[in-house]
């Protein structure tokens, strides 16, 4: 949920930290590498305080030990210069004019021993103290307070900035999710509409788009509904005329039978289309009741067994006997499940397995046939209205309109459930899982 916020937050914060620390380090570096000038030479009385231990160390411990000692010092640095080579003991760079300056000042500093000379064997050393002030004045080298302050400030700004960007996106995401669930009359949060920037404009654009989309879908559904409804009057007249024709012709007439059969098919198609268009709307509360699931599934299975006999196929009932009650519309659920079983019977070679089991807060119904299954490419599309899988088109016996599974899916979606299609390996069968929550909300 707040992933985006944390992404923004850390990116901004780390960017700010890098800037702060980077700038700090740069300033520190520059200050420490400025060429030494007169101001760096410490001629104060205190200088000898630093020089004396170095001097005695040089005398007693020798050069290398003293070098080690010098390395540990970082402010008020004692420089030890070999006067014959002008080399510093730790090879630190010293501008020549600075050395000249030191030599000039030797006399002046003799009174307080701020500059001292030492002869060790054949080498003469000049000892003096260089004071490199920190960029932040006479404060400790690590500027804890400003850095902490800057870090805290960056924390605050990173938080504000991250929220400024992520909050509208989160709000927009929630809104678009509603659209995904089929709700097209979205209301934008005032936090979005009040924004004058691109994100605010984007939100308003999305709202306009959604409204239009909703209108288009709405008019399509209405059109479908109207067409289906209007087709019924001519169909009724057609059936009447056919009935009269049959009444008048005494002998058995194949053509009349054919017309009657096709009329039934059109009637069935219209019925399915109307169901489909109705399922686009939410199921109204009046249509929802507590459904005793066991007799419902048992009746479907009994009918399936009966139908299987005439197809010389077998239905194996694996349903559990747990008593299950679900919230929903029994008629829609009945046909939704029956559609899948009809399909399975049609495509099975010999056997259809039907079963159900209670899961957490849901009942799972599975229907497996031992047919060829569906081409993987078709799997995602088989719930599209009027879609018929390619292996169905080849077989004239597999008649249908391609609406059954669409109705099934919409029904289960309307019940907050789910329909999962999968092939068994090596074209050995096809499996449909129907997941139905026990309660609707």
């Amino acid at each position: 949920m707040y992933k985006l916020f944390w992404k923004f937050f850390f990116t901004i914060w780390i960017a700010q930290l890098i800037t702060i620390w980077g700038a700090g380090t740069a300033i520190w570096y520059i200050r420490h590498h400025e060429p030494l000038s007169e101001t760096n030479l410490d001629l104060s009385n205190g200088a000898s305080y630093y020089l004396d231990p170095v001097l005695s160390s040089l005398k007693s411990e020798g050069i290398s030990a003293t070098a080690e000692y010098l390395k540990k010092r970082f402010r008020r640095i004692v420089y030890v210069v070999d006067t014959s080579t002008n080399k510093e003991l730790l090879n630190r760079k010293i501008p020549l004019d600075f050395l000249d300056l030191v030599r000039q000042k030797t006399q002046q500093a003799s009174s307080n021993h701020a500059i001292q000379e030492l002869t060790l064997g054949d080498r003469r050393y000049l000892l003096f103290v260089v004071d490199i002030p920190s960029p932040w004045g006479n404060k400790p080298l690590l500027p804890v307070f400003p850095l902490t302050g800057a870090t805290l400030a960056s924390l605050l700004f990173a938080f504000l900035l991250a929220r400024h960007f992520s909050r509208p996106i989160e709000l927009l995401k929630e809104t678009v999710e509603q659209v995904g669930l089929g709700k097209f009359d979205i209301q934008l949060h005032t936090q979005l509409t009040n924004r004058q920037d691109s994100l605010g404009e984007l939100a308003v654009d999305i709202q306009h788009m959604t409204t239009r989309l909703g209108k288009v879908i709405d008019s399509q559904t209405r059109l479908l509904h109207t067409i289906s409804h209007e087709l019924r009057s001519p169909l009724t007249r057609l059936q009447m005329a056919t009935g009269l024709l049959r009444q008048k012709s005494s002998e058995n007439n194949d053509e009349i039978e054919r017309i009657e059969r096709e009329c039934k098919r059109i009637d069935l198609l219209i019925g399915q289309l109307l169901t489909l268009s109705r399922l686009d709307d939410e199921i109204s509360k009046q249509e929802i009741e507590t459904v005793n699931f066991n007799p419902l599934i048992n009746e479907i299975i009994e009918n399936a067994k009966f139908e299987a006999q005439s197809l010389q196929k077998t239905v194996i009932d694996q349903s559990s006997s747990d008593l299950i009650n679900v919230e929903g519309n029994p008629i829609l659920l009945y046909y939704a499940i029956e559609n899948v079983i009809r399909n399975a019977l049609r495509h099975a070679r010999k056997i259809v397995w039907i079963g159900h089991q209670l899961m957490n807060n849901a009942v799972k119904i599975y229907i497996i046939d031992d047919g060829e299954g569906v081409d993987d490419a078709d799997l995602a599309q088989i719930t599209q209205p009027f879609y018929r899988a390619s292996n169905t088109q080849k077989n004239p016996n597999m008649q249908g309109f391609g609406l059954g599974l669409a109705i099934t899916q919409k029904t289960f979606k309307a019940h907050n459930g789910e329909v999962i299609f999968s092939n068994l390996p090596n074209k050995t069968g096809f499996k449909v899982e129907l997941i139905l929550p026990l309660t609707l909300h």
Partner: protein
Amino acid sequence: MQNVLLIDDDIELLDMLSEYLQREGFTTQLAHSGNDGLALLRIHSFDIVILDIMMPGMDGLETLKRIRELSLIPVLMLTARGDDTDRIIGLELGADDYVPKPCTPRELTARVRAILRRSQNTPSPQENNRVIEINELKLWPGKRQAFWFNSELLLTSSEFNLLEVLVRNAGKLVSKTQLSEEGLGHPLARFERSIDVHISRIRNKLEVINTSKNPIKTVHGQGYIFIVE
């Protein structure tokens, strides 16, 4: 010959249906609006009304309400398939049965016959006076009359048939399947609610006469029992 009143705004359909019914041995009169139908009903005597629910102007439900104000004549509704609301309201208003449109004339005629078979058989005088008496209910199947606490029950044809089935099986559970087959003359369709609506109307009529006792009990999901005391 049985006289059928057809009320539907679809003129062509009605002409064909009328011809079909005449060939099946009925006499018919046609009305293309609810008002025309009511006018004919006031003048002539009919055995049954076939009434389309989806009509412009005064719709079928309104027409049905007014027919019931006039008489208890059997009414068969034509409803849009899938439109459960209209169907249920129609049955609640006292229609005897319904046929979803589109339908074949054969189905329609079968329904008409199923309703008329019960209401129109002309029994012998002995049969006419035979009475079934249970608790405070007196029922003359031949005369198609029923009394409850000595007040006459005004029942539609379907209501009378269903009550008769219940009373004949008094004290026993009668399934909806049996009620549909014996009372309405056709098998129970899946998710059919009409039995419940009819029974609820009968119960209401019983309660109007005597509020304290209602002999018809519901056995949820199974059927109904007429209780014998």
